[in-house]
């Protein structure tokens, strides 16, 4: 079945991603009920705002444990934006905060200068191209939701912090901003996370969501 639960733990706009999943043929449902999370075929973990406030809301919602059990069960999880960042071990926004630790690594602030030392606008907002990680080509995208996306195709980013997975193979795609390499997609086993918003990334984002739903 193509059913997807969009986890509602009190953070952000869930309507856009739900509509996008429906557009991709999913039976999508927003839920804050632990039973729905436990019983989901697929799960979307959204997130907007600061790392710590998202983690706090997640804990307070009582959905952290059901989420971790879902991950352990091997069913597909998609984290979006801060929902992706929370999958890492540590977030460094407004202090040092513990993440979910599903993927090893940290979340750090984007540098506000480019590689030539010029001032760089942070947050990084706008359309930017997706590329395979350094040393890899797009064959690494086969069989993942990125399958068939052309390297360089743009997605829509809004963020000030970036994920730095400690295991290079956990990084599936990057984007370049002011000469900095920023993690765009992380993946490990049944878990995938996008720094950008697939629900706002036009045809490229919809392709990813369609493949996430169909997998």
């Amino acid at each position, binding site marked *: 079945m193509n059913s997807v639960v969009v986890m509602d733990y009190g953070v952000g*706009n869930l*309507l*856009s991603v739900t*509509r*996008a999943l*429906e*557009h991709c043929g999913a039976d999508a449902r927003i839920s804050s009920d632990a039973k729905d999370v436990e019983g989901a075929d697929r799960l979307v973990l959204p997130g*907007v*705002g600061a790392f710590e406030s998202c983690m706090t809301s997640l804990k307070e919602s009582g959905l952290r444990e059901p989420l971790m059990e879902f991950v352990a069960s091997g069913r597909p999880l998609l984290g979006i934006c801060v929902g992706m960042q929370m999958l890492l071990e540590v977030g460094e926004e407004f202090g040092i905060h513990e993440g979910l630790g599903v993927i090893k690594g940290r979340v750090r602030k984007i540098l506000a200068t480019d590689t030539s030392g010029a*001032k760089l*606008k942070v*947050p990084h*907002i*706008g*359309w*930017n191209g997706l590329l395979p990680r350094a040393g890899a080509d797009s064959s690494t995208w086969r069989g993942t939701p990125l399958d068939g*996306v*052309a390297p*360089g*195709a*743009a997605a*829509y980013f*809004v963020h000030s912090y970036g994920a730095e997975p400690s295991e290079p193979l956990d990084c599936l795609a990057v984007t370049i901003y002011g000469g900095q390499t920023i993690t765009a997609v992380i993946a490990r086993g049944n878990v995938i996370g996008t720094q950008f918003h697939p*629900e*706002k*990334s*036009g*045809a*490229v*984002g*919809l392709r990813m969501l369609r493949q996430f739903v169909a997998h």
Partner: protein
Amino acid sequence: MRNVRLIARLDIKGPNLIKGIHLEGLRVVGDPQEYARRYYEAGADELLYMDIVASLYGRNNLTDIVSRAAKDVFVPMTVGGGVRSVEDARKLLRAGADKVAVNTAATANPGLITEMARKLGSQCVVLSIEAKLTAPGKWEAYTDNGREHTGRDVLEWVRQGAELGAGEVLLTSVDQEGTRKGFDVALVRAVTAAVDIPVIASGGMGSFDHLKSVVLEGEADAVAMADVLHYGRASLEELRKQALASNLPVRKLS
């Protein structure tokens, strides 16, 4: 260099997409949903909805239109017109908007910009400025579709807005709006030089050459266009193709 965004602007009155000249003399164009879907499918980088009579009535009427759009439009949406409070902005964000534009309420109470930026994040606060030329190199900020003076100098106001926490500027030239005679490039250049935040140039787009000059000479980060699209004088596909052929930094559609 970042990608310059091509934005389809939809001015709304009641249930209708409308278009005026100098933001007045409004004509009904059609159903906003139909146009929104068409522009999304044609590759718009973003949609911009403005409820252009909202300030008069003190409310924004776009929640329904935006939540309907969220079913068919999968690029960012900016929404403005009559936004008076953080709560107004929150309603629009919940309906599917990504950014909220403020003008009238912010000129009356600039602190609203800071409050919105703190509670919702700078990235979703767009300062909307309606500018009228008053002397060479000088512009005054207006509200209510260019009808009401604010007494504020555009360049001072935009600097203040950026300091207060606005994440972006929507800059509409009242003089050029609806004329199809091109952007007020000097205005756009003065504003892009004054602030570090992205600037959306709006008002006057009639042909690809206008787009080119406002990007190259005005250094606009984004270009909003309305009747040139509504009346089919140019298409987003064609404009993007021309932009790529002229080496303007726009998103490649794949």
